[in-house]
């Protein structure tokens, strides 16, 4: 039997209830959204270079990475706006990468610029996805009303996008995304157009709303604070590859390689050359004056020659060099909270310490984390 007819037979089969439970079973065995060895090449550029990803049902997964790392391309492939060069995409147990167009994937997406329809009112913007599936006018009005209430934009429904503020536009875009109860939300940096003040509140609201509604969500951002704050799990990407997947705490505490270690955290993890094969890493906020540690804590003491002290209001950043690690000409940073009042002067040597549990070692050549300390 030729392959095509086999496939069409299977497609026919999947319309029956029995096969439906089959795909549901498959969905529970694997992630709700799954990418398998996914590639996207634009000519010579490998924007996404062999990504395996599994998103659990109901979780908020953040794709984090610098611009050009492939996170947006990965999301666009899941949405169906970009065709993978190679690999598979599954949503809710159904393979979608070959001939399922965006409209049939059961997804909702919020673009960076919100992509509101400028010629339609807020109401028509929100109702547009419902018109596509031929809902009755009454059902549409009820659904729009429900979504608008959830985001507090009922008084704005008659306005056009250009009459709305940035925050209001974002709410309209979110309301449009939830209104037809999608299987998956895709968010492409939806907060990046808001000013800093609004962003923290919007982040809080977004997380609240996602928890309430419980829809599987993939969220793209280059902002590590946003990623840490929002994500149930974070996928750190660089140069088209996944570097690490884990909860925010895991990724922060146990970075898989030096890229993750320095991309997360502000200031980033200190990396000093320990020997010719090893980089030694520790977080600035765990590198503190020796007396601040309780006597029973297992610590490693270093002598820090202080070069510069920055007073940042919420604390101090102390720049200096480790006397013990003379191979490195990179300064290390200690991040002292405002509660530690130890006077520190420039060009003096102080005893600083790192808890042993917070010491990390990386292979100098590959950048990968080492399980067992220096080689």
């Amino acid at each position, binding site marked *: 039997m030729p392959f095509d007819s086999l496939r069409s037979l299977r497609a026919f089969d999947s319309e029956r209830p029995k096969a439906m439970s089959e795909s549901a079973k498959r969905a529970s065995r694997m992630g709700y959204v799954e990418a398998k060895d996914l590639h996207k090449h634009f000519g010579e550029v490998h924007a996404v270079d062999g990504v395996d990803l599994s998103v659990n049902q109901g979780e908020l997964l953040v794709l984090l990475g610098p611009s050009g790392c492939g996170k947006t391309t990965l999301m666009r492939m899941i949405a169906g706006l970009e065709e993978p060069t190679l690999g598979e995409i599954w949503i809710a147990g159904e393979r979608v990468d070959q001939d399922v167009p965006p409209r049939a994937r059961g997804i909702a997406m919020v673009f960076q*610029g919100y992509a509101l329809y400028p010629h339609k009112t807020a109401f028509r913007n929100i109702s547009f996805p419902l018109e596509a599936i031929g809902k009755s006018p009454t059902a549409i009005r009820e659904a729009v009303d429900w979504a608008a209430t959830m985001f507090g934009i009922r008084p704005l429904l008659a306005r056009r996008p250009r009459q709305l503020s940035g925050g209001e536009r974002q709410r309209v875009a979110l309301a449009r995304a939830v209104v037809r109860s999608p299987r998956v939300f895709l968010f492409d940096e939806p907060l990046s157009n808001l000013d800093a003040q609004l962003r923290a509140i919007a982040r809080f609201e977004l997380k609240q709303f996602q928890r309430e509604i419980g829809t599987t969500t993939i969220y793209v951002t280059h902002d590590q604070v946003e990623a840490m704050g929002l994500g149930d799990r974070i996928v750190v990407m660089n140069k088209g590859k996944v570097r690490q997947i884990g909860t925010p705490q895991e990724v922060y505490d146990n970075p898989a390689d030096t890229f993750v270690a320095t991309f997360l955290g502000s200031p980033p993890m200190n990396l000093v050359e320990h020997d010719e094969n090893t980089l030694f890493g520790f977080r600035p906020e765990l590198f503190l004056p020796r007396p601040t540690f309780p006597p029973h804590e297992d610590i490693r003491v270093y002598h820090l020659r202080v070069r510069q002290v920055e007073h940042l209001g919420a604390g101090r950043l102390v720049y200096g060099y480790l006397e013990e690690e003379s191979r490195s000409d990179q300064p290390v940073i200690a991040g002292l909270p405002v509660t530690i009042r130890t006077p520190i002067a420039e060009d003096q040597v102080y005893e600083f310490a790192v808890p042993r549990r917070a010491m990390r070692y990386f292979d100098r050549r590959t950048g990968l984390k080492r399980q067992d300390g220096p080689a």
Partner: protein
Amino acid sequence: MTARRVVRVLKQIGLYSAAAAFTGLAVFPFYWMLVTAFKEDNDLYVAATMRAHIPWIFNEPPTLEHFQYLLGDTAYLAWVRNTILVGAAVVVITLVLAVPAGYALARLTGRWGERLGIGIFLTYLIPPTLLFIPFSRVIAVLGLQNSLWALVLVYPTFTIPFCTWLLMGFFRSIPRDIEEQAMIDGYSRLAAMRLVVLPLAVSGVLTAAFFSFTLVMQEFVYALTFISSVGKMTVSLGIPVALFRDVFNWGAMMAAALITSVPIAIVYNLFIDRFVGGLTAGAVKG
């Protein structure tokens, strides 16, 4: 008055007189057309030989005799009808082909879109004075000599490239996000184009329709080549060719030109905002 203020006033005067000069230059032909259309023949021809005669004012009371002659004794109304028929057909053909072509060039062909677009525009630049020779052969083979169908067939060869290029620019100014959003919101690419892209490109489509029509109205070479009988002429051919009998009938020619240009001027002024401005403000951020 301080010296600085004097300089500013002088600058203003300079600016306004320059603007006035350009306006005068642009308006004068229309003024001449207007005056000539309503002048007595004597005022036009005979008096012109006299030294005291001032040509740009009415030396004798205005008259409607040229209009009466034009509408009563010439085929002018038939030319208007022919122009509208050909123009409408060409506009429809042009839009049907140029809208999808412009959209495709703006969106689908990537790097090659631009080069193809430029290539298409280049064909618009080949002068009709060269192209009428091969075209006349084609028209002869099709047996369309002295038929309006010849014009309906030939005119899109320059309106389509022009409008495709024009529309490509308009479609490009519409953010891609918006139609991708529509495709995610449950629509096919075609539906997204019809429901989201086209409403946003209304000003572009109107502009394209308007310019194809005016291109048809002013076309002369092809009309001269393919149309021979007076009753089948278009305005742009009939006025200079068929109003000329034993003398230049300036009064009637200017009357015809006036009647023809007034509706265009009105339409243009009504829609000038749409021609110039887009609707996309507020679509994306900002």
